[in-house]
């Protein structure tokens, strides 16, 4: 009995121990963020490039050869609904421009076979083509939701998929507000625009940019202030898609209409 009592911890001991544990956890957690910043390998001063796209809606003629070239270059399944890049035709009909029913959006087979005008000229208030692809967001929702770390932003600003690590859960496909991802029907993994990373690294332009006959698509280094992309953004009224979502896209559009979502 006497021995047991001696061994027994007092309330004071218990409080001491638990506050010591709580204190050290708090102390460690204060250093944790500093540690991860210190271990971060790429900061602005280190990276060589920070890639972005610039699309000029005024120059896009809707030939759809970008979407076609993308499928060929990247072995994207030929069926509709699997697209890394596609083109949409927006047609705003005469009448009240604020009403949604006056806006028609068409993208037959992603524009791969080109477009035919479906609304007669006299009913049209305004019509234009919008090329779309992954926005390679700086704060990418798809990267945030991936449970296994199979999608990520490379140090040079390209959002990629690690298809050998992806489990195909499809969270990223749902998270992308731009509809830029799809589940590859054979690989059963998420797939999307890679900015033609394999071409970039060989010094070539992405396939869609390379084949664009009017120069409506361009790409460049957002860190290079004298470069063509930064100059394009500087000299045009550029906007990004869905800025209110705070995804910080690196795809900039000239002459983007309010109606484009």
């Amino acid at each position, binding site marked *: 009995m006497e021995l047991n009592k001696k061994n027994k911890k007092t309330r004071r001991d218990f409080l001491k121990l638990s506050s010591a544990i709580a204190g050290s956890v708090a102390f460690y957690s204060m250093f944790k963020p500093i540690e991860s910043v210190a271990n971060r390998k790429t900061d602005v001063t280190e990276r060589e490039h920070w890639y972005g796209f610039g699309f000029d809606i005024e120059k896009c003629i809707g030939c759809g050869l970008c979407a076609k070239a993308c499928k060929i270059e990247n072995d994207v399944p030929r069926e509709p609904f699997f697209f890394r890049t596609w083109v949409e035709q927006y047609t705003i009909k005469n009448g009240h421009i604020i009403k949604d029913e006056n806006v028609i959006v068409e993208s037959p087979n992603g524009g791969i076979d080109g477009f035919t005008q479906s609304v007669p000229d006299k009913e049209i208030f305004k019509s234009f083509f919008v090329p779309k692809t992954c926005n390679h967001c700086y704060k990418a929702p798809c990267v945030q939701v991936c449970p296994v770390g199979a999608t*990520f932003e490379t140090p040079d600003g390209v959002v990629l998929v690690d298809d*050998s690590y992806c489990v195909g859960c499809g969270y990223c496909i749902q998270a992308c507000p731009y509809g830029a991802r799809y589940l590859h029907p054979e690989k059963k993994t998420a797939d999307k625009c890679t900015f033609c990373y*394999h071409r970039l690294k060989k010094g070539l332009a992405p396939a869609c940019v390379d084949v664009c*006959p009017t*120069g409506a698509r361009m790409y460049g280094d957002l860190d290079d202030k004298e470069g063509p992309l930064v100059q394009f953004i500087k000299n045009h009224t550029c906007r990004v898609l869905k800025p209110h979502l705070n995804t910080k896209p690196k795809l900039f559009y000239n002459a983007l209409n309010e109606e484009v979502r």
Partner: protein
Amino acid sequence: MPKHILRLIILFVIVIGLFLVARQFLIPESFGEYGHYRANSIEENANHDIKYVDRAECAECHDDIAALKQGGPHKNINCQTCHGPGNLHIEDPTPENIVKETEREFCGRCHNKNAARAKLIKQIDINEHNIESKCIECHNPHEPWN
């Protein structure tokens, strides 16, 4: 120390040890090098083969057409925009492994009348304009309207 506590400690050490060993095997190589992903995946993505070759390569053999194209409004257009990817053709240059578009619909992709099309592009209605013949019978795509 009481025996049962000692047993528990030993068990804990074994379980934690096994966890650490398993972790070593389960975490792929290069994971976490740049962030919460496999750094080697960057390399793997970069290693895919290209199909659309460097646009300068076409002119190495077809310098006559490149020169012809320089004088016309199609001068800035990549050959592979119309002719498709050139990867097979530069390895083994035969007419079979390069695309030669001849149909009206192909020209119509850019030149068919469409309200959304930029006005600087010459446009015709392919359902009305000289329907009987192919575009290339009158217009040389390498130097159109010359």
